């Protein structure tokens, strides 16, 4: 049973209050997803807003075959894909280079959490799009394999394969973090 069903029905009937509740419920997850898929790009929140706008426009056509969360994730992925196709590879290269645009001076202490996030975002950016999406949905969004298969409209076996290959590619890129462990400060061990 979709926990959002009642709100979705009310929003589809025109209730903006119900839709506002849906936005509040899912905004963090969708922003996290767009950030993961755009490697922390500055317009990640803007893309997330676009996803909700599209969801509002398409609510009447939402048949409920999947959960609202699944449907919303699918919309967000399409929004990111459209934006990246529109901007082209040049923009993605430029966006990926932004964290290096202003490197900290040796005298300033490096924010460990920020550095850790940048390592992860750069590692994700190096993946092919289909692998990046799959591993982000699983490990960062917490979706199960069945739900990811519904979002991407691919078999569960394909989802498993993509996630496996993504993690294998990420391992050497995340090696510094693997040595320090998943802690934020990196001072454990």
């Amino acid at each position: 049973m979709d926990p959002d069903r009642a709100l979705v029905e009310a929003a589809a009937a025109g209730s903006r209050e119900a839709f506002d509740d849906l936005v509040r419920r899912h905004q963090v997850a969708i922003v996290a997803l767009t950030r993961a898929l755009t490697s922390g790009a500055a317009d990640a929140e803007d893309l997330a807003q676009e996803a909700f706008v599209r969801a509002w426009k398409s609510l009447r056509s939402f048949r409920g075959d999947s959960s609202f969360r699944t449907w919303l994730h699918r919309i967000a992925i399409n929004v990111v894909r459209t934006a990246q196709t529109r901007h082209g590879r040049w923009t993605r290269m430029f966006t990926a280079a932004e964290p290096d645009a202003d490197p900290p001076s040796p005298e300033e202490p490096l924010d460990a959490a920020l550095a850790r996030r940048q390592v992860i975002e750069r590692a994700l950016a190096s993946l092919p799009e289909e692998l990046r999406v799959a591993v982000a949905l699983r490990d960062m969004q917490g979706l199960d394999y069945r739900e990811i298969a519904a979002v991407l409209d691919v078999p569960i076996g394909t989802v498993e394969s993509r996630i496996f290959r993504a993690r294998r590619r990420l391992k050497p890129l995340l090696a510094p973090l693997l040595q320090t462990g998943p802690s934020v400060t990196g001072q454990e061990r």
Partner: protein
Amino acid sequence: MTEHDEEQDAVAAILASVPPPRVTPAFLARVNARIDADAGTGWLALADFRVWTLRLAPLAAALALIAVLWPTGGVEPSAPAVASAQQTFTPASAADWQQDVAANAMLEAALSGSAHAR
């Protein structure tokens, strides 16, 4: 658990450790603003000057072209007009000085008159 599984789990744990983003407080307001902006396709769109500017641009271009090509009184007179001016102009006639004769017609008459004199 195999080494492969441990590596897979380690990578998954690192990705899962990314903290949730801080969504700006105005996020919902911006979503609603964009929805309202997209919904303004009725009378609100008519108040958008950019819509009118684009739609009227071809008409404005056509009017400008007509204004350039349309003949006016200040333009060089046609041949029949010059001939008509020559027929009515006689240098000895005082009334001619009072007539509003086009400068070009006077020049033509003067030149043709001097040619006859030779």
